[in-house]
C-alpha cells in the first residue's frame, strides 16, 4: 500500500476528534453537557455487573445495597465528567433501569425506589415535577403544564370516585384505604388515570402553543410523574388493572397517559426487536423522574438519549441520536446504553457486537454513524475503560477502517491521476450530499407512506442572505442556502432558498400542502446541517493531500473553504490531522 495512504489512515485515527468538527474536551466541562460521562458511567455499571453485584432493589434488611454502591460510583464519575449532580442522579437511575434494575420495591420498610437511590447517592434534595423541564426541541416547556392542569382540575371538579368526608375518622394514610379495595381497586387507579389524561393533554397543548411539534413521549412521562406526586406511587392495584405483585399504580396511570398521547401499546428495543409494554416503561421512568431531583434541560436531553435504545424513538420523541439522523455528537449515548441493556441481560460480547452493528443500520448515513460511534467510544476510554467500550469499538472498527481506507484510496488515486485537490473536494462533497438525498428519500418513503422518487439538491452553499456577517457567509450551518427538488407520488416540487424563504413563508401562512411536501426533505436538510458531526470525507482528502506534499495548513484551510457544507462550522482538529499526516509521511522509511 502507498505510503500516502498509510500515513492518512494513521493520521485520521490518531486522535478520536480528528474525524469530527466537534470539540470533545468541551463535552467534559461545566457548561452542562455530559454525554461522555454517560459512556464512562455505563462502563462502571457494566464492570460492577461483571464483579457479580446484584442489580436488584430488594426488601433486604440492610441499610445499603449493591445498587446503592453502584449508584454512588456512577454518580461520582458523572459529576467528574461535568454533570450537574441532579443530572448525574437521573442519568444513573436511567442507566441502571436499562441495565435491568427494578424501579421500586417494598412497602413500607424498606421502600426502595431507584430514582431516590440515585438522588441520595448524589446528595441532593428532592424535586418536583413542575420544575422538570422537557428536552429542548428548539424551545422547551416543563412538567409545570401537567401539574397546573391537574391542580386546576382538582380545584374545579371532584375527581375522586367517592366522597372522602364519609371516610371514618383517623384512618387517613392507613392501610384501611391504602392497602384495601378502597385505595387499590378504586381511588388510586381511577383518580390516577383521570389525572394522567388531564396532564397529558395539557402537556401536548403546551408544546403546540410554544411552537413545537408535541412530544408524545415526554407528555406521557411528565403527566404520569405529576400524577404519581399525588396518588400513591407504590400501591398494588385491583386485579381488574393487573396482577398482584406485578402491576402497581405507575403502570396503570401510565396506561391512560399512553392512550391520551396516542402512543403505541408496545415499543421495541433497537437491534433486538424485543417487545416492551409502553405503559410499563413510561410508568417506570416516570417514577424515576419523580424521585431523582430536578434535572436541567441538558439532563433531560441526556435522559432522553439514554432511552433512545427504543426503536420507535425518532417517531415518539425518545431522544434523537439513536438514528436515523446524525446529530451533533454531544447527544450520542445510544451505543453504551444499548450495550449496557444487553450486558445487564447476560448477552456475551460477541452478541453485543453483532446487535450493535445491526442497530447502526438505522441511520441514514451508516458509515458516518459508525465512525461517530467509534470515535466517541475511543474518547470515552480515556475516562473509563470497560466491557461496553470494548464491544462498541469491536463493533465499529472494521467498518470504520473500511470506510476510511476506501476514501483514502479514492482520494489518492484521483489526485495521482491529475485531479486538483479542489476538484476532488467538490466531487466528494457532491457525492456526500447525493448519498444523503438518496438515503433519506428511500427511508422517508416508508416512514411517510409516500413514493418519494428522488430528492435532488440543486444548490447547497453557505450564505442564504439572511445574515450579512462574513462568518455566516463562510460556514454553512449559520445561514444555509438550499435549492432542492423532490418528486413525491409523481408530483415534482422545486424550492429555491428553502430554509430562509420557502419554509418560513409556508409555515407562517399555514400552507399545509407545502409543509407536508417539505416533510419529505426535512431530514435530508437536517443531515446536511449536521454534517460536521462526522467530517471523515473531508478530513481524509485533506490528509491525503498533506501526505502527498501539500502544506498541511493550506490543505486544511482549502478543504474547509471548498467543502463548506460538510465542514459546516470551524474545525481546529482538521489542521492537527493534516499536520499529523504530513509528519507521519516524512517519518515513513519503508
Amino acid at each position, binding site marked *: 500500500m502507498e505510503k500516502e495512504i498509510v500515513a492518512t489512515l494513521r493520521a485520521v485515527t490518531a486522535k478520536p476528534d480528528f474525524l469530527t468538527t466537534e470539540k470533545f474536551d468541551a463535552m467534559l466541562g461545566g457548561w452542562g453537557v455530559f454525554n461522555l460521562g454517560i459512556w464512562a458511567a455505563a462502563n462502571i455499571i457494566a464492570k460492577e455487573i461483571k464483579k457479580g453485584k446484584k442489580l*436488584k*432493589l*430488594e*426488601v433486604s434488611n440492610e441499610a445499603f445495597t449493591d445498587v446503592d454502591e453502584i449508584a454512588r460510583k456512577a454518580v461520582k464519575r458523572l459529576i467528574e465528567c461535568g454533570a450537574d449532580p441532579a443530572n448525574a442522579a437521573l442519568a444513573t437511575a436511567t442507566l441502571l433501569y436499562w441495565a435491568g434494575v*427494578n424501579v421500586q*420495591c*417494598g*412497602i413500607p420498610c424498606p421502600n426502595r425506589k431507584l430514582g431516590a437511590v440515585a438522588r441520595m447517592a448524589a446528595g441532593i434534595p428532592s424535586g418536583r415535577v413542575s420544575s422538570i423541564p422537557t428536552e429542548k426541541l428548539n424551545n422547551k416547556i416543563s412538567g409545570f403544564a401537567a401539574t397546573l392542569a391537574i391542580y386546576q382540575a382538582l380545584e374545579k371538579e371532584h375527581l375522586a370516585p367517592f366522597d372522602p368526608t364519609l371516610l371514618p375518622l383517623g384512618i387517613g394514610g392507613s392501610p384501611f384505604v391504602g392497602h384495601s379495595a378502597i385505595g387499590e381497586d378504586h381511588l388510586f387507579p381511577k383518580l390516577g388515570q383521570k389525572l394522567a389524561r388531564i396532564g397529558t393533554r395539557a402537556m401536548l397543548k403546551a408544546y403546540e402553543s410554544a411552537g413545537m411539534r408535541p412530544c408524545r413521549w415526554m407528555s406521557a412521562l411528565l403527566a404520569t410523574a405529576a400524577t404519581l406526586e399525588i396518588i400513591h406511587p407504590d400501591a398494588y392495584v385491583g386485579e381488574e388493572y393487573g*396482577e398482584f*405483585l*406485578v402491576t*402497581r399504580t405507575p403502570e396503570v396511570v401510565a396506561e391512560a397517559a399512553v392512550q391520551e398521547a396516542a402512543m403505541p*401499546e*408496545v415499543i421495541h428495543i433497537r*437491534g*433486538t*426487536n*424485543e*417487545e*416492551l*409494554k409502553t405503559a*410499563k416503561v413510561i410508568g417506570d421512568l416516570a417514577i424515576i423522574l419523580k424521585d431523582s431531583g430536578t434535572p436541567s434541560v441538558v439532563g433531560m436531553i441526556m435522559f432522553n438519549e439514554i432511552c433512545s435504545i427504543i426503536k420507535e424513538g425518532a417517531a415518539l420523541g425518545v431522544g434523537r441520536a439513536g438514528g436515523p439522523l446524525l446529530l451533533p455528537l454531544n447527544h450520542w449515548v445510544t451505543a453504551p446504553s444499548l450495550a449496557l441493556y*444487553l450486558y445487564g*441481560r*447476560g*448477552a*456475551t460480547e460477541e*452478541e*453485543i457486537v453483532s*446487535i450493535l452493528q445491526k442497530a447502526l443500520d438505522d441511520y441514514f448515513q451508516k458509515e458516518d454513524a459508525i465512525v461517530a460511534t467509534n470515535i466517541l467510544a475511543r474518547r470515552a476510554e480515556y475516562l473509563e475503560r470497560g466491557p461496553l467500550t470494548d464491544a462498541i469499538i469491536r463493533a465499529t472498527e472494521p467498518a470504520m477502517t473500511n470506510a476510511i481506507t476506501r476514501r483514502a484510496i479514492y482520494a489518492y488515486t484521483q489526485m495521482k491521476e491529475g485531479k486538483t485537490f479542489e476538484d476532488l473536494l467538490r466531487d466528494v462533497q457532491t457525492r456526500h450530499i447525493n448519498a444523503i438525498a438518496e438515503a433519506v428519500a428511500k427511508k422517508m418513503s416508508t416512514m411517510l407512506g409516500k413514493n418519494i422518487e428522488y430528492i435532488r439538491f440543486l444548490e447547497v452553499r453557505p450564505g442564504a442572505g439572511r445574515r450579512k456577517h462574513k462568518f455566516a457567509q463562510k460556514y454553512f450551518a449559520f445561514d444555509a442556502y438550499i435549492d432542492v427538488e423532490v418528486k413525491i407520488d409523481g408530483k415534482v416540487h422545486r424550492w429555491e432558498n428553502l430554509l430562509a424563504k420557502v419554509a418560513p413563508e409556508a409555515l407562517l401562512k399555514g400552507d399545509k400542502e407545502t409543509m407536508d411536501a417539505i416533510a419529505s426533505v426535512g431530514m435530508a436538510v437536517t443531515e446536511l446541517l449536521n454534517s460536521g458531526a462526522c467530517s471523515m470525507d473531508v478530513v481524509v482528502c485533506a490528509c491525503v493531500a498533506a501526505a502527498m506534499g501539500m502544506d498541511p495548513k493550506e490543505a486544511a484551510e482549502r478543504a474547509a473553504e471548498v467543502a463548506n457544507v460538510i465542514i459546516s462550522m470551524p474545525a481546529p482538529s482538521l489542521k492537527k490531522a493534516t499536520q499529523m499526516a504530513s509528519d507521519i509521511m516524512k517519518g515513513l522509511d519503508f
Partner: protein
Amino acid sequence: MQNAGEYLKRVMVLGDYCYLESAKKTVLTVFGCIKVFLSERDIHRVNSILPEELQSLWQVSEIRREENNTSSEDCIGLLQRAGNYPYRAAAEKAIKVVFASLKEVLTADGLKEFVSLIPSSLREIFNSSGVCVFDSSAEEFL
C-alpha cells in the same frame, strides 16, 4: 387452570410479554426444542405428566426440520435459533419463564419426573426459575 388460554395468560405475566401470541410462541418453541432432545418414550412421559389442558400444546409443538440441523447444538442454542432470540440469555429467559409456569401447574411428583426427563443442561435453569416477574417485593416468600 381452566384451559390453555388461561395458562398462556399466566405465561404472559411471568415473561412480561406484550401479546398472548408471544407467550404461545414461547411455550411452543421451548416445548419443541426440549422434544428434540428426548426419546419418543420420554416425550410421551412428559405428555402424561402435563395437565390435560397443556397436552395439546406439547403435542403440536415442533421445531421445523431445517431449524434442527446442527447435531452439536445444545437445547438453548437450538432455542435461540428456532425462536429467533437476539442473544443466548434471552433464550434462557424464555426457558425460565416456561419452567416457572410449569412449576405452578404440575404436581410435586410431576415436577420431579419432569426435571428428571429434561436435558441435564436445563436443570440449573429449572432450579432457578422460581419467580420471573420483575417486582421483587415478595420474592423471598414465594
